[in-house]
């Protein structure tokens, strides 16, 4: 719980920390930001914070004095290609899964209830964006590949990342250089991405429900 920013006294804060350590692959060095790391950090920022996936106003406890500050840390264990999609998915699922302590405000007094006293409550999530990456190759006869592996990513001429939710709303479209594309191709890709996002949505919801059912909450 922290003091909010003076220009936004009604909103909580979310910070995302995603540094790629050499554990992911021996190409990454600690301290030095590779291009991929910068791209992932910026994309995560756009997809998770600026798309308003989390309702920041629900994180407010006492306007102008106390708000929740959520810190999301991503550890990259192994680079098998397409870490961006994985990072977005992991971050989104972590935020959906998280439960914060219940807070009671009487006048100016703030009481934070322990998770053992009162059941913790989930964050208010407006929508669930998923990120999907397509790789294009210099030989235009090869169709774009979704979710490229390490080798495919290395050999690709360009990547197109599309972040959208299951309600067919586009959050972010990011194209990192490379092969020029027709409008038809881009629309086609967005349609495929919508299908995949719907599948992912069902998967995430089922798993979260299973996990919730296996926990004892009174």
């Amino acid at each position, binding site marked *: 719980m922290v003091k909010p920013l003076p220009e936004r006294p009604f909103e909580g804060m979310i910070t995302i920390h995603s540094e790629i350590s*050499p554990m992911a692959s*021996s*190409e990454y060095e600690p301290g030095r930001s590779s291009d991929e790391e910068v791209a992932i950090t910026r994309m995560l920022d756009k997809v998770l914070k600026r798309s308003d996936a989390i309702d920041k106003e629900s994180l407010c406890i006492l306007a102008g004095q106390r708000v929740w500050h959520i810190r999301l840390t991503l550890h990259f264990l*192994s680079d098998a290609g397409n870490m961006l999609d994985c990072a977005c998915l992991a971050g989104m699922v972590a935020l959906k899964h998280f439960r914060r302590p219940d807070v009671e405000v009487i006048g100016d007094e703030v009481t934070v209830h322990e998770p053992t006293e009162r059941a913790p409550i989930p964050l208010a999530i407006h929508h669930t964006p998923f990120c999907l990456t397509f790789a294009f190759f210099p030989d235009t006869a090869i169709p774009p590949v979704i979710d490229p592996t390490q080798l495919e990513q290395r050999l690709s001429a360009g990547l197109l990342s599309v972040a959208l939710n299951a309600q067919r709303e586009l959050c972010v479209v990011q194209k990192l250089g490379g092969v020029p594309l027709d409008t038809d191709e881009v629309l086609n890709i967005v349609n495929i991405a919508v299908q995949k996002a719907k599948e992912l949505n069902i998967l995430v919801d089922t798993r979260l429900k299973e996990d919730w059912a296996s926990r004892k909450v009174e």
Partner: protein
Amino acid sequence: MSATILPGTTVPAQHVNLKLGPGLLQQPDAGEAGPSIISTRAGTLNHSFNGSKWWVESNSRRYVPAPQESVIGVIVQKVGDGFRVDIGSAHSASLDGLAFEGATKRNKPNIKIGCLVYARVSLAHKDMEPELECFDAQTRKAEGFGEVRGGFLVRCSLRMCRDLLDSKHFLLPLLGARFPLEAAVGINGRVWVNAKEQKHIITISRCIEAVDPDGGGLDEAGVKALLGSLDI
């Protein structure tokens, strides 16, 4: 003769000339009967027939360097007289410019950044940078070590590399009977393969990934079926 074991389990290994292989550690603290042996990895516990050699067979993808092991490395930097090589371990290894057969101060090998080398780990301690050499320890001749050109690098798990180095394993002779190939197996999870045609190289790479215990663990019949379905 083999049982599945978890890290931290005490191992009943007793022998006059006890030799501990990978995955076992001797704890010098005084238990009921002197030093105890515990396992540090999860895997199958094996021992030799007379109980003098004990080891744990496990699989992993991260390489921990040990001396006298042959590895394949990628040159990442030229440092003074030598090179910095990435062998997949926690630290980059150093390869001296003179550690090649027939290298003198005037005649150093000119290897570019990004090239592959097949080298032998000469020094490996837990907290230090490992050191590599490109000649055999006893004969001081190349014996296959040195820069490798062309071909393709396949990554696999460590158990797969150990299996490929075993002369009784089926995969490389099976593929070699179909088309000529060259292979250098590094024990750090990397295999360099080369063949005359691109589709042969791709075939070898796909077969290695299929037979890898991490990626399916196909047996000989499965590989033959896979080869039948590919166009070679």
